[in-house]
Structures are given as structure tokens and as C-alpha cells.
């Protein structure tokens, strides 16, 4: 070896030194760029994929109207809550309000409703002529595993004249934590005492039967490829992806669809003055909501820390979203917020203060 060995060692040492220098330089560069705050008039948010199409429409419009640059990524409600709790974003978006534990972890965050839409019940029943009709109790029994076949008497009774096949029902649900699950389990708890006591409401619950899949696209994919499947997904997703979805019987006895009119009718019975987020209950609306009222709808929320260095921009952006921004909703199957809810949002927006 001799001379060659020495040279080799030198080369090795040099290579290592170089790697260390490069690593240090990269690391230093990284930390520097990470600590560089985004510009003052830009807001960063993440969370709900459900509200993503609506926020995407808002971004250029709010830049035009107010000169506020908003960046939003659809990562899921759970991530939205986690990120705003960690204060790594300016706002988070979630389809379910904060649970008590989440609220205490978020340390004085306000939860403001800024979108409203229906939840559809898509199905894959081969050979069915016409649209499937379901009622709350029947839907609950399907999701509980009490009704297991499409030609069961209970489904037949709601669908006279339809040829329901002798096919096993496959329930498909969201495996990830989801605002859609929160809305649907809220409805099922309302209409079925057995669901309420056995399963309950939550962003993820212990479904008695079925298969889980991730995200709206995940459950929709399983339903498309599985004959006899049934699931829940927001109405916009069903409509844009051409999924067949059921009409649901409301308290007034009508079979309603999750379109803009159905959801508008459902929220018409909310109290005139709303002071608490718990009052925003819109599943299974009372008889006086009418025959059009669709019984499974949900608000989607923006979550903001009450003390933020960008409080002014956040207030302006959210105020714009719940007023001007609502008109972007209907083409995307979002329903404009009713006046009483808007009043509530104004009071909540005021709680966002500078540091």
C-alpha cells in the first residue's frame, strides 16, 4: 500500500470534511430560510379537503378585493386542527368543531362556521331502476348491520316498484378522522337510539360493520368497484364524480336531495340569534322545515387563534369569506350561510386580536 494507501486515506478524510462542510452549510441555510417569516400580508392555512374547492375560488378573489394573499392546502381536518394548534399555520379548517380536548390544546382558538353543504349517501346497486329512497331509521339499520341485504323488506317498503337485487350490502366508511363521519354519525344518533347508545357521534367512530377507506376519493373508489356498497360523502363530491346517491326521508315525510335548495330549507329553522356553536345543529331538522329539507348537512369551520400577529388580515379575510365569499358557493354545491349564522360569525371574528 504505502504511498497509495496514504493518498487514499487523505482522500477519504478530505471527502468526509467536504461532506461535513456541505451538510453544515445546507443545515444553516435551511434554518435560516425556515425562520424567515412569510410576508406580512399573506395568510397560510391548511386542513379540510371538503372546503378546498371553495377556498380555491376565494384565493384569487380575496387577493383582488383586499390584497391579501392566502395559501391553502387540503390536508384533512385532523391535520388542520393539529397545525393550527402548533401555530405552524395562521388558520386551520375542519368540518367538525373542536372536541373539548382539542379546544383546550389549541389554547383560546375561535371556531367560525364559513361553509355549509349537504352530505350525500352514494350507493352501487346494479340494476336498480330509478333513485334509491331511504329513511333515517333504515339508514341507521344498514350502518348498524341489522339490514344486510338490498332486497330486505324495510328497504322494499320505502321503494315501491323498484327492483332491488338479492345482494349483500357492503357498508363503506372513512377510515381516517373525518368531518363527514362527524356529520353522518350525528344524524344517525339523532334518528336511531340504538346507534346513539352503541356507536355514537365522532370524527372517527367504531363502525359495527363494513370496510374503511381513506378520504372521499377512497370511499368513492371502493363504492364504484364494489356491487352492493353504500357510503357517505359530501354532495359536491358525489355530483362532480357522478355517483348515484339516495334521497332521504325527512320529518315532514318528503324525500329530499342534498342540493342547495334541500340544505337551505334544512337551515331555515335555526334560532334567530345564535350565541354558541352547539346551536348549529342542522341534522334531522323539524317538520316545519318542510318537505324539501335535506336531513344530513354540515357546517365546515375555520379555526383561528384569538391572538395572532396577523389578526387584522385574518379578520378581514374571514369576514370577506362569510359575506362576499358565500356567493362562490352554489356552483360548488355549498349553500350560503343563513343570516343568523352570519351574525354569530361577526361576533366570533371580533375575538381575533393582535398579539
Amino acid at each position, binding site marked *: 500500500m504505502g504511498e497509495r494507501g496514504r493518498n487514499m486515506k487523505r482522500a477519504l478524510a478530505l471527502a468526509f470534511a467536504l461532506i461535513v462542510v456541505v451538510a453544515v452549510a445546507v443545515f444553516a441555510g435551511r434554518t435560516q430560510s425556515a425562520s424567515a417569516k412569510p410576508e406580512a400580508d399573506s395568510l397560510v392555512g391548511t386542513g379540510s379537503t371538503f372546503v378546498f374547492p371553495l377556498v380555491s375560488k376565494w384565493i384569487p378573489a380575496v387577493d383582488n378585493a383586499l390584497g391579501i394573499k392566502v395559501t391553502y392546502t387540503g390536508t384533512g381536518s385532523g391535520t388542520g386542527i393539529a397545525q393550527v394548534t402548533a401555530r405552524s399555520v395562521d388558520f386551520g379548517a375542519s368540518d367538525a368543531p373542536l*372536541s373539548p380536548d382539542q379546544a383546550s390544546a389549541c389554547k383560546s382558538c375561535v371556531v367560525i362556521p364559513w361553509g355549509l353543504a349537504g352530505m350525500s349517501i352514494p350507493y352501487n346497486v346494479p340494476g336498480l331502476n330509478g333513485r334509491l329512497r331511504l329513511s333515517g331509521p333504515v339508514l341507521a339499520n344498514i350502518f348498524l348491520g341489522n339490514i344486510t341485504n338490498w332486497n330486505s323488506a324495510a328497504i322494499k317498503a320505502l321503494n315501491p316498484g323498484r327492483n332491488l337485487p338479492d345482494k349483500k350490502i357492503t357498508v363503506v366508511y372513512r377510515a381516517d378522522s373525518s368531518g363527514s363521519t362527524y356529520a353522518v354519525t350525528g344524524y344517525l344518533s339523532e334518528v336511531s337510539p340504538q346507534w346513539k347508545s352503541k356507536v355514537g357521534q365522532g370524527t372517527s367512530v367504531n363502525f359495527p360493520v363494513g370496510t374503511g377507506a*381513506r378520504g372521499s376519493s377512497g370511499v368513492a373508489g371502493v363504492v364504484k368497484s364494489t356491487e352492493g356498497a353504500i357510503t357517505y360523502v359530501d354532495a359536491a363530491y358525489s355530483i362532480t364524480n357522478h355517483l348515484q346517491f339516495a334521497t332521504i326521508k325527512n320529518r315532514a315525510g318528503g324525500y329530499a336531495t342534498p342540493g342547495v335548495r334541500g340544505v337551505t330549507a334544512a337551515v331555515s329553522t335555526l334560532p334567530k340569534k345564535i350565541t354558541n356553536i352547539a346551536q348549529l345543529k342542522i341534522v334531522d331538522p323539524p317538520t316545519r322545515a318542510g318537505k324539501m329539507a335535506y336531513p344530513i348537512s354540515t357546517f365546515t369551520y375555520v379555526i383561528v387563534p384569538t391572538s395572532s400577529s396577523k389578526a387584522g388580515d385574518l379578520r378581514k379575510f374571514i369576514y370577506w369569506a362569510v359575506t362576499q365569499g358565500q356567493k362562490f358557493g352554489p356552483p360548488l354545491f355549498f349553500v350560503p350561510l343563513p343570516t343568523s349564522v352570519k351574525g354569530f360569525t361577526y361576533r366570533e371574528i371580533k375575538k381575533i386580536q393582535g398579539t
Partner: protein
Amino acid sequence: MTTTTFEPAAPETDLRRRGIRLGDLFFRGIAVAAALAATVLLGLIAWKVFDLARPAFQDFGLSFVWTEAWNPVTNDFGALIFIYGTVVTSLIALVLATPLSIAIALFLTEMAPRRVAGPIATMVELLAAIPSVVLGLWGILVFGPWVRDHLEPWLQSVLGFLPMFSGDPNQAGILPAALVLTIMIIPITSAICRELFLRVPRDLIDGSLALGSTRWEAIRGVMFAYAAPGIAAAVLLGLGRAFGEAIAVNQTIGNHSVIPSSWFAPGDSLGSKIASSYAGATSHLEASSLLYLAAILMVISLIANVSAQFIVVRFERARRGL
């Protein structure tokens, strides 16, 4: 190394030698630091996982491990469902992948002409380069429906009397997940087996053939005996990979929090449950319980690794005894 001859040292070479010593020192420092960093990192990760799992541990104790429950609404948590899913899918994958991997390795080293062996070996290894999320997607869109429509009905018609092959065929469940895992671990185990077979001294096989044994007898008696500890280690490495896989399993196992009686039915595994639920955990106890699952997964993987080493040592000793 070299025999150093001491010639009258010119001042220049002395300096150079000193420079090299400095380089040596530098190199040693980096090597030690890297080794230490890996150890410390492992320790820190393990400590953090166990630390974060502590609230769940205090609440449920050790019985969490054999409790069959997962209900975020009532805050009732247990690990048995997921341990069952992890262990059963991994063991099915192992049982299927081991003979297949050995067969692939034997074909490549013993049977295939060299011109064919090279490309096939590369292809098998490239199988490992498919990201698990892509393999999982393929599992959802292509493989799962095929398993449901063809493989499971056939299994049921042949082995339907066994409880694990009864019930309705499903595109997502224990069996589809296990099959996807099989595909994932074959590249690793077959590549290692191939390496092992190539290293078996040619003289031994030639000797055995010269003594009149058939090809198969030579393979069984000489190659397998020589490579046995390595094969065992390869298999356990594959098992470790199967235990830890989260995403592909998540996409194909069906994410249903029960212990299914049939392998066709959906279940869930440790890695899959952590992947799907951690971001959206609604209570501290749920988040902590998920970390408890992570701790259990770490312990299971550790057991697999330690037993791998134990088996290798045992085999090695047995072989020396021969």
C-alpha cells in the same frame, strides 16, 4: 497491512505523516460520532414514544395489550385487534414469500442461463423500488377486486371448510393485505438468498455431485445446509419489513376495528391504525393510545430482530458441530 521500513526521515515526509495521522484522527472521530448518533437517536425515539404513550399506559395498564376494543367515542382502547392484524398478515406473507424467494434465488443461481439471470434478478430487485403507497393503490384498484372476484371464491370452493376461508369475499381484508405484503418482502428475501447461494463454495457442490448425488440432493444437502443461517436471517428481515409496513396495508386491509374470523374480512394492523388515525385523534387519550400501539410495534419488531440473531447463532453453532 504494509511492512513499514524506517528510512532516514526527511523533514517533509515526517510532516506528511503527521498530516495523515490528523486525517486518521478526523476519520475516526467521524466514524465514532456517526455510530454514537445512530444509537442515541434510537434511544431518543424509543424514549419519546414510550413517554407519549404513558397516559394510555397509566389508564389501561398492561391489559391494553390483550384488550379487544377501539372506540374513540367512549374512549375505550386496546391493542389486540391490531396485534392480530399485524401478526397474521405478516405470517401469511412470510409463509408465502419464503419458498417463493428461495425458488427465485435457486432459479437465478442454479438453473437460469447467465444471460437470462441478470435481467430477471434486476427486475425482482426493482420490485422493491415500487413505493409502498403505489403498491397499495394497485392493491385497491386492481389486485383487491381480482382477489375478491377470482382468488377468494376459488379458495372458498377448495378450502371453504376452514373458518379462515369462509364468509363473503372482499376486496379489502386480511388476505389482500397479506398478499401485498408478500409482494413487498419477496425482493428482499430473494436478493439475500441469491447472494447466499452464490457464496456457497463451488467445490462443495461439485464434490457432492461427484459423489453421485443428484442436483436436488446437492442443493438440499449442501447449499441449504451451508446457507441455512443466512436464509433464516433473510426471512426474519422480511418479517421485520412486513411488521412495520403501514401505508400499503392501510390501503388494502379494510380498516375495520375488529378481529375477523375469516381472512377475507376486513381488519386492521398496528402500523395501519397509527397511519390512519393519528392526525385526527380527538382526545389526548386516543393520541396516547396510538403511541402505545407504536410502542407495541417497536417491541414486536425488536423481538423479531433479536430472534433473528438468536437463530443465526444457533444455526452457525449447529453447522460447526457438523
